[in-house]
């Protein structure tokens, strides 16, 4: 069970080297125990450190909306210009199970890649492939 202030740096070596780009792949199980704001903080703290964050199961539409809102409040000239985010298009409503429809459940499971806007560039995206170019700071 994750603590109230999640930090993917707990056991990780320092990433202050200029030799590469760090990628944090966060499982759905890890995100499940977090509140919406904790998820957003986890993502933005990583991205602001120059890391690429990959979410196994993505965010809900409401969390995506808040991620955009919080990102905007943190943009500052010559420091942080925002995020690049890519997901596969959401599965069509027809793909939901009968029980999900009956219970009003909407699946949000979609692999999501998030990185600093000045370091990640999407080269190609379609329903089955996201191709991105990642550069160092």
């Amino acid at each position, binding site marked *: 069970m994750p603590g109230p202030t999640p930090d993917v740096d707990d056991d990780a070596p320092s990433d202050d080297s200029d030799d590469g780009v760090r990628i944090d792949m966060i499982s759905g199980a890890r995100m499940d125990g977090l509140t919406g704001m904790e998820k957003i903080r986890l993502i933005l703290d990583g991205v602001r450190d120059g890391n690429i964050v990959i979410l196994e199961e993505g965010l809900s539409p409401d969390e995506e909306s808040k991620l955009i809102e919080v990102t905007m*409040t943190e943009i500052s000239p010559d420091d942080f*210009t925002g995020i690049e*985010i*890519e*997901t596969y298009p959401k599965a069509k409503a027809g793909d939901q199970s009968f029980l999900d429809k009956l219970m009003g459940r909407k699946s949000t499971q979609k692999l999501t890649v998030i990185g600093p806007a000045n370091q990640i560039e999407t080269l190609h995206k*379609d329903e089955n492939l996201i191709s991105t170019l990642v550069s160092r700071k």
Partner: protein
Amino acid sequence: MGLLTNLKDSISRVTDGLFAADEPKRIGIYGPPNAGKTTLANRIARDWTGDAVGPESHIPHETRRARRKENVEIERNGRKVTIDIVDTPGVTTKVDYKEFLDHDMDKDDAVRRSREATEGVAEAMHWLREDVDGVIYVLDSTTDPFTQVNTMLIGIIESQDLPALILANKTDLPGSDVQQIANAFPQHETIPLSALEGENMDEVYTKIAEYFG
């Protein structure tokens, strides 16, 4: 629990609708920067009230505050629909002041514009979650609609069960591809128009009355 919650929400929506039938609906005009949202808002406002909503520009993020034009009465097929138009800043996930330097701005002006733009986008997202009853989603039909911002915003709108009308704008320009937008969002009806030239506004008004009346 889910069933009960859904039932409660449905009853609440119906009763809200009954008691607020005469209240103007707040219709947010959303979309990415430079899609022509303010041009459309001005076109609608001028056609039905004689006033404009705000200044238009080819420079991204000209609209940096949500602007509301209240009590716009649209008559269609003998039926009158009253809406408040909310023209919102173009939604994005990144704003870099350096992009404004290409538009004959000095650094101070560019930084100020970018700061206002970020505040405006945050405000627009807040409006979308809390304060609009329906959405007109405007896309530039000369550009690729398969962007993350479009995918996320349409997903957010759908998750809120808001009625949404997708408009494929700038059909007067070469390279306009309305079908590409229709293919990107097949679950929604796509209406072509040129807000600048006023082309196909009759159909737009008919659909506004149908969707938001």
